[in-house]
Structures are given as structure tokens and as C-alpha cells.
């Protein structure tokens, strides 16, 4: 099965947040009781009931005022740490790229929560289980695009063959964003959520330096730490 991916072209994202709503609708996630705390970004962070979130970053430095929008969600890593550290085999990696937590098996040990370099999986305090974006595995295995991609009107989100999306993202970067970055090609062994960024990843809140062997080392260290931790691997 060919590897698939979502390409998030942030240059096209207008932060309408239809993706945020479509995700909740398809996955039947409840609206959270939020308050306006001074930013359009709401809920403030990803949570067990908010699997995707458009982040708003305002900066007045450098090239005039910038308001940057980025849709945050699970990156569906090839080297998925959540998969590596899970003691219960609750995380499934699909050949298409989806990384999915099985709530039946999750025991809420928080290892994935603590080790994800993107701070994606979150504990649901009510169910004591971890939850995150599943890449709409139920839709894509039935020939439908993920719900967020389906609803995106501006063309910021696309779903397709990973290799093709990478090619197209690079071509668009070369044409329009000379200092832009295609993020996700090699990060964490290759992400299945790719970004076309007009500027440095850090300006969008994305960690830099996840593409080298240092990452693997850090990952192994984390795995080892968990393996040796007092909690140990829970036994069935």
C-alpha cells in the first residue's frame, strides 16, 4: 500500500477553522467549555477532545506585522515515538502512514504524552485514556479524504500520495517562497502530515532539528528511560 499524507499549505490557510469543526463533527468530539483569553486560538491547546487546532501567532518583528496560522494535529510519524514507547501495543501503525491509538488497549500510562516531540497525544481525564488524531483512518480506508481535508475551502489542505504531495510542495516553494521550507520530508523518519511553510518552522511553533540521528538517539534514550522506570512495562 502506498504511503499517503496530508499536505498543509499554510500560505493558503486563512484560519477559518472549518477543519477544527469538521474534525469534531466526524469524530463526535464535544465542544469544550472555553473562555476568550485574549487570542483567537481556542481551545488553547490540543486535548483528548480537540484533535486538531488552528494556532494563531502574532509577531510585529522583522518584516512588519505577521499573523501566522498553523493547523496543529498528530503528524503520523514514520518513527512514531508513541508507538515505540507504548507498553500495551495500543498504537497501530498502518502502511498508509496513519498512527492510531486503540482506546481499548490504552491504559493511560502517559508515556506517549510525555515523549511526543509535538506534544500531540493528551490524556482524557474522564476516561483515563490517551487520545489524538487518527488521520481519519475510518474514512481513508474507505476511499474518503480525512474530514478536515474534505471541508477545507481555501485549498490549504490536501490528501494524497505522499511522494506526489512532496513533489508539489517543493515545486510551489521554489516558485513562490524562496526562503520557504517543506517540513516533514525527513523529520521523525518522515511525517505523514507535511507542511509547506513560507518561513522558518520555529515561527510556526514547529520543532527544528528532528531530521537527524540525534533524534533517534533521543528517542532510544526515552524508550530506555521508560523501560527502566519504576513503573516498568505493565504486564497483562
Amino acid at each position: 500500500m502506498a504511503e499517503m499524507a496530508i499536505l498543509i499549505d499554510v500560505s493558503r490557510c486563512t484560519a477559518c477553522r472549518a477543519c477544527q469543526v469538521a474534525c469534531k463533527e466526524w469524530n463526535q468530539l464535544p465542544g469544550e467549555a472555553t473562555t476568550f483569553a485574549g487570542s483567537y486560538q481556542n481551545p488553547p491547546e490540543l486535548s483528548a477532545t480537540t484533535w486538531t487546532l488552528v494556532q494563531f501567532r502574532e509577531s510585529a518583528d522583522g518584516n512588519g506585522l505577521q499573523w501566522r496560522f498553523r493547523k496543529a494535529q498528530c503528524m503520523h510519524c514514520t518513527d512514531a515515538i508513541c508507538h515505540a514507547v507504548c507498553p500495551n501495543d495500543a498504537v497501530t501503525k498502518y502502511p498508509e502512514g496513519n498512527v492510531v491509538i486503540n482506546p481499548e488497549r490504552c491504559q493511560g500510562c502517559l508515556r506517549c504524552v510525555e515523549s511526543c516531540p509535538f506534544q500531540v497525544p493528551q490524556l482524557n481525564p474522564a476516561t483515563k485514556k490517551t487520545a489524538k488524531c487518527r488521520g481519519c483512518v475510518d474514512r481513508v480506508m474507505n476511499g474518503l479524504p480525512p474530514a478536515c481535508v474534505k471541508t477545507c475551502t481555501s485549498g490549504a489542505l490536501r490528501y494524497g500520495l505522499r511522494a506526489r504531495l512532496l513533489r508539489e510542495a517543493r515545486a510551489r516553494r521554489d516558485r513562490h517562497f524562496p526562503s520557504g521550507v517543506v517540513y516533514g520530508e525527513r523529520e521523525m523518519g518522515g511525517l505523514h502530515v507535511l507542511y509547506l511553510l513560507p518561513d522558518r518552522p520555529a515561527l510556526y511553533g514547529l520543532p527544528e532539528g528532528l531530521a537527524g540521528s540525534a533524534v533517534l538517539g533521543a528517542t532510544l534514550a526515552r524508550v530506555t528511560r521508560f523501560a527502566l522506570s519504576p513503573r516498568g512495562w505493565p504486564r497483562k
Partner: protein
Amino acid sequence: MTNHWIDIGNSDAILIIGSNVAETHPIAFKWIAAAQDRGATVIHVDPRFTRTSAKADIHCALRPGTDIAFMGGLIRFAIEENLVNREYVAAYTNGPYLVHPGFGFKDGLFSGFDEANRRYDRTTWAFQRGPDGQPLADPALQHPHCVFQHLRRHYARYTPDMVAAVTGVPRETFLKVARLFCATGAPGKAGTILYAMGTTHHTVGSQNVRCHTILQLLLGNMGLAGGGINALRGHANVQGSTDFGLLYGSLPGYLALPRQQDHPTLASYLEKETPKGGFGVNNPKFFISLLKAWWGDKAVKDNDFCYDYLPKVSGDCSYPAMFEAMLAGKLKGLIVIGQNPAISGANVGMERKALGELDWLVVRDLFPTETASFWNAPGVDPTAIKTEVFLTPASTYLEKDGSVTNSGRWIQWRYRVTEPLGAARSDGWFINNLVLRLKRLYVGSLQGKDRPVLDLHWGYGEDRPDVDRIAREVNGYYWVDRKQVRNFTALKDDGSTACGNWIMSGFYFEENRAKARKVELEGIGAHLGWAYAWPLNRRILYNRASARPTGEPWDPDRIVMRWDPVAGRWVGNDIPDFRADLAPSAPGGQNPFIMRPDGKGALFAPLAEGPFPEHYEPFESPVSNLLSKVQRNPLVRLKVADWNTLGDAKQFPIVATTYRLAEHHHATTRYLTWLVEMMPNMFVEIGRELAEEKGIKNGEVCTVVSARGQIRAVACVTDRLKPYTLDGRTVHQVGLPWHWGFIGISRGDSANLLTPHVGDANTQIPEFKAFLCDIRRGG
């Protein structure tokens, strides 16, 4: 829109002024992005840096209520820098016409001002005419009395320095915008203007739009692919609602609503409402076909086709005047369908009070609204309210069949996907049943005043109306055999045809073309086989102007229409918005603006305030008018009352503006948890400098006060709002979304408790977008 959504992608320069399109029309942004990919420049002129500004190439922060100063500056720049398409102006506009020698402008007023009655005698606002009745003209545009030279002189005062001092836009930013947009005056280039309520919600709202007309005519941008003046309408069917006479001054198809004073008889109506030239000469055919559609067999020549049955308005029947009458107890009942005036009107404190003077109020909506619950508003004692309120559940768009007409005039059919829940019924059901029951109640009456109801031709079935029958009537048909007419050119003024809305006629001749779904594979994105655009499926209005006077297109790569001399007809990617066989050299062959009596685009066009837009300050303004001694629109009358006081800048030094958010639709979405979680509270956007001055911290509650009321809101302290430097003075501004009200799962104070009840001199649209306030910490 003169053009349509997809056509925005054809543009070279997109000037967005008075619209936050990325947030209020998210889907439209796809076409703006498509133009950007082709290399187009996107300019956003707006008081606030919004999600639209974030995607634009340039953001230009304009003080609310100074659009005319800004646009006037662009008009001056285009003329003085010689960027005007002179061939276009000479051939297609009234720029060459000579104006009455007595016409002039002095000290902020045009000639003919009647100080006592605050209105204009328009005698000098006219063209000099030759013995043949035709206007005298100077095609070289040099005669000192010609429109073009008047225009040049009028805007000579609108220099970049003046623009900066009035609007707060820095001189260099203004010049950058001016150079980029006015470059579309070159033949082969196309620039579009996108606007919305930020343009119209002012006491000079109509003149704001007139500025767009003048600039686009000067640059030769009308009629072109990627050009035009494009009003982004607020909902899926706002265009359709105004097409059907929802504006207080018009009948379906923008025919004038009869006024008692001007139109006591059919003869007087037809005489006054039929222009001597242009397409309007056909108005009697459309009007009488409308009367025939409404009163059928009863409408005959001998009784003036039941003209007497039509109510004739007298006095001011605008929205603000309606609430004044209500407050005064002159209006007894009100039916509100799909609107929520208790939060969306200007100065809603007054409007809520006015609702309490009604005998009865019917509200149809999806949820209980503030209007239906006005008697339970904060501070209101329900036992003191005598109004009887009926809240009836409406059905959603998914629960009814019918057409909607989008901003680009595309009539598109939609299908019901499910039955309404419970007792919910469509608005069509409601109106059908209301009329049928009224007719039954009047049966047997011999009184003349009941004839209009009894004689009404009303045959759409019982219960849920047959929308197919309605659609056929809208298209129009021959009375004798009920066969549909081909289009409005078949309509007659002798009672032999009936037509519900002439501008849409043609959409349902042999088949309902609103249902057509054929996608264009190559061309300019006109998609002639997708739905049906009024009039006659024309996608770009005035498209004769897409070609040079000789008939060759200005831009061979984006042909809309071109004259084919061999075939002897116009060909191209659209339907000609004029006679298809009219040669460029034939009489009238260079008259693209067919709805004007002379066929020419109106650089000079009398509105209430004058034939050229002139800057006046908003009714509440922090500064004096720098362009003249006339501070405010002299034609606007302020209703002075204890509920409608104006604030002065000493007490209320901060400029405020109101707007919508992407996450909410009016007030109804405050019932939906997924949307409320994204925008949970009423907030006020404040610039960092003002917040520091007032000691307000991001995220804390503060109070905003105007002369009309005060509200609580959470502070959103941001760099996206900046103070203006006006003639050396610093003026701060705040921004207020107006979605909130006192019911729903997310509740908050309504921004419109602060806005003034004062409207534009031509349309009476209230000044929601520029008023004065003050702000302080704490609730």
C-alpha cells in the same frame, strides 16, 4: 457583483476595501489565492489587521469613515499621474459631457444647496444639451465644463498629504497602493474592487460605493474579466432577497415601489418610472407583467391591471424610520423572518424598547432569538410588556427546495435533503398558509379594501407550496396558455404575459436552468452551463466595455466579448450584455452601460449629496473635517431624541467599529457548541498603545461606553490595531464583534447597544462602522 466569484481569479490587482473577505466569505478566498498565484497583488484597506490582511500583500490601515478621502486620493492619483484609460473614458463614460455652466462646488457644498430644507436644487447638476437633445461633449476631455475636468478639479484637494492627514494612512503606504492599483489603467490589465458592509455602513455609504464606480471607470476596469465592482453579499441569498424587492424602495426586479405622492395612478407611475433611453424603456412591460402575475384574471387594461391594489407608501419607510414609528406606537404588528433586530439593529436599546410598543410580534427562526425574547432582556420587566409574541420554528436550508442567488447573480437550485424536525416549517409554507387563511377569512366580504387579498392570484397548492410553480411564475409565462416565455424580451405591457421577477426571466424556459451543473473546461471561468446568472445568463455585466471601441478586446488573453466582422456579431466567452449583432460603428454600438439612459458609465451621477462623492466626517468623529468646513453629510437628518444622543470627542475620544467573525453567523450560531468553543465570549480588540494608556491587560474584562449605552467585553490586546496619527494628533480605535446577545449557550453584551441610529442619506443604512466611545478597566 458586476462580475462573479470565480472571475476574481482573473484579476491583476485586487483592492479589498470595507470587507474582511477571508473571515466573512472564506470560500471566496480560494479565487483571491488563485489570482495571487498568477501574480496578482492583493491590497487590503481596513481599520484592523485581520485574517484578510494576513494573506494580503499590503495592509493599509484606514480610519473608519474616511473611505471617500482615501478613494478620492486614488482618483486624483490616477488622473494626475496620467494612468487613466482615456480611450475608455472618452468612449464609454459621461466624462466628455459638458455640465451646466452654473454647476460648481465650494466650501464643501455643490451648487444649489438649500440651507433651510437641507437638500439640493439639482437644476445645475445637468448636462448641456444640443438641439437634438443629446449632451454636448468634448471627446478630448479638455473643455473646462466637461465632467472629466470637473472631476479633476474636485479631487485636486485629495493629495497624498491630505489623504494621510484625514485617513491616517501614511503617505508612502498610500502612494504604494495608488501605484499598484492604478497600474490597472493600462489596456490589457484588470483590477477589481471587493467591498462589503465596511463600505456601506456609513452616513456616506452610497457615496463610498460611488467612489468605486468613478475609479473603475477611469481605469477602464468595468466589463473586463478580472475587473468590476464586486459587492460581497452577506449570505447565500442576500442577492436573491434584494432581487425580490426586500429593499424598502423596490418591487421585485428593482422596479420602483409606488409612492403616493409621485405615483397616484398607473399612468403617473409609468410616466415617471420609464426613462427616455436605455433598457429602462421596457419597464412598463416588466411592471404590468408583475401586476398580471399577482392579480391574474382580475388584472385587465380597464382597471389599470389592479394598480390600485398596490399599497402606495408615503413618507419614510426605511428600517430606521420603521423603528421610530414603532417606538411612537404607530406600528401595531411585526413579522420577523430570519432577522434578529434586537441585536443586529443600530442602537438596539431603542429597538428593544420599540418592540415593546407593538401589539403583536411574530418571529420565525431556528432558535429562540433575542428579538423573540426582548421582553426578557436584561433590565426589562416582563410584566410591563404588553406585546404578544409568537415564536414559530423555521426550517433550515437543508429542509427545503428552491433557489438561492449568490453575489455573482447566479441562480442556483438546492434540493431538500430531509424533512423539517417537529413543527418546524419552511418560510414558504408559512407565507402560503398565511395568505390562504387570510383569503378564507375575507371570503364574502363586499368591502373594496379587501379586494386586493380576495383577488390575489395565488395557486401554489395547499400546505407546502409547489416551488416549481413559483419558479415558473418567476420566469414568466403567456397568460393565455400558461406556457413559459423564452426570456424577458417576450414580456408585454398589455396583460398578455405574467412575470414574477423580470430580471430572472429566462432561467426557466424549457428547463429549470438553475439546476444546470455543467463545468467549463476552458475559457475565462464563466461556466455558462452552471446555473443561470441574471440577466440572460450574462456573467460579466457591461461586457461590451471588455473590448475597445472598435470591437477588439483590450486583453487578447482574457477575451470576454469581441466583434467578429465576418460573422457580423459579437463572440467570446460570455453572453453579450447588449445586442449581439450591434456593430461597434452602428449608432449605440459604443454604449456598454445599457441600464443608463445614455448608455455611458456615470462619472457624474447625482445622489442626494451631489454628483461626485465628497468627504464628510462620520456623525461621531474625533476630528474636524480637513477638506471643508462642512463637518457631516449635510443631507443626513439626525433624529434627535433622548435615546439617540451623539457623543462628543472630549467625552468619547476613541473611534469604534463593529464587525463579524468567521466563527459566528449573526447570533444563531451561539447555540452551537463547536462554534462557541472557538469564539466563546464578547470581546473588544484594543491596540497595545491604548491598552497601556488605560492599564488594560489582555484577557481581562473591560467596559466600553458610548453616548447610547455601555457594554462589558473581554480585552483582546493586539498589535493588529494601531492608533492613527491625524494631522499630528493621535487617535485610538477599538473593534467590536456584534454577534453577542442575552440568550444562547454563549451570552454577552451586544455591541449595537453602542451604535448610533443615523443612516445614509440615500439608503438610510445605519452608521455601524464608525462612532465614538471610551473604554475603561473592569466590568
